[in-house]
């Protein structure tokens, strides 16, 4: 990995962690546009069968054992951003591997 790549990772990740870990604590708690529309239309009742979410350490965007305060939210934002980062980097690595074999 070049210095250029390391800098991309460091600066981008720092921004993501600050936004997900701290700024998001001050997010609006109002329902989002879709939820509000469903409420207004009287369409907020689930009518179809659901596929259950798998067990998770998180209850929505808070780490279960830290609760819904600042730190529970910060843990969700930071760990979530890291999980996405690692997942995408792993995918990228696999895809690059695919391309390399194509060239051989």
């Amino acid at each position, binding site marked *: 990995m070049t210095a250029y790549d390391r800098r991309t990772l460091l600066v981008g990740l720092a921004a993501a962690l600050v936004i997900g870990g701290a700024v998001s604590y001050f997010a609006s708690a109002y329902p989002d546009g879709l939820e*509000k529309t469903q409420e207004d239309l009287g369409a907020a009742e689930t009518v179809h069968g659901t596929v259950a979410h798998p067990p998770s350490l998180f209850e929505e965007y808070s780490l279960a054992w830290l609760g819904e305060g600042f730190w529970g939210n910060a843990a*969700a934002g930071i760990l979530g951003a890291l999980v996405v980062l690692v997942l995408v980097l792993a995918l990228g690595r696999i895809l*690059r591997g695919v391309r390399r074999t194509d060239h051989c």
Partner: protein
Amino acid sequence: MHIGSGFLSPPVWGAMTAVSGAALAVSLAAAGRRLDDRKVPLMGVMGAFVFAAQMVNFPVLAGTSGHLGGGFLLGVLLGPALGTIVMASVLVVQSLVFQDGGVEALGANIFVMGVLPCLMGGAVRGLWRRGGWAAYPTTFVGAAAGVLTGATIVILLLAWSGTLPATVTLAEAIGVMDFVHLFIGLVEGAVTVAVAAFVVRVRREAVFGQGLAAPLGEASA
């Protein structure tokens, strides 16, 4: 705009899973052929950024909030194929780890917030590559249009699933949904222009890759 659990009927979520699955398969095949090394770190941090940014709900109108979608931005910075892959990764983590968006609705959510806006963003990528002022208004309007198109599709999917009450017409439902999302779309447009302009300026080589010299003092590995 994540569709929750229990709102889509099996035929609708099945069809959307097939559509998004096919789009992802095409994206992975295309990415496997032309992924350049410098793009991978950018993909990772843009995924983390979009995840984090989506947690920041901002108030719009009375008692309503919205958050960034980010698909159009990923389309601009990564192209439609890589953008769709990154957006799908974000949505999968949100659904499976944070219970945001129904598991069976993942295909629909990936289409509405990933495939569709990523394709739209990819369409204006050339303007950013070329430079000049036209990229700004086009991206602003395009990202907002992406949100509105997605919002409209969500209502259609809910209608086809029989989830909307009989008392409201389809046109009324789309009207209510799109009115709210017009305001969310304006924020999406502004944030997309600002972040795209910033990243293109500081990471042009990673964004547009091939054919550009490595930055000074660095050997291309």
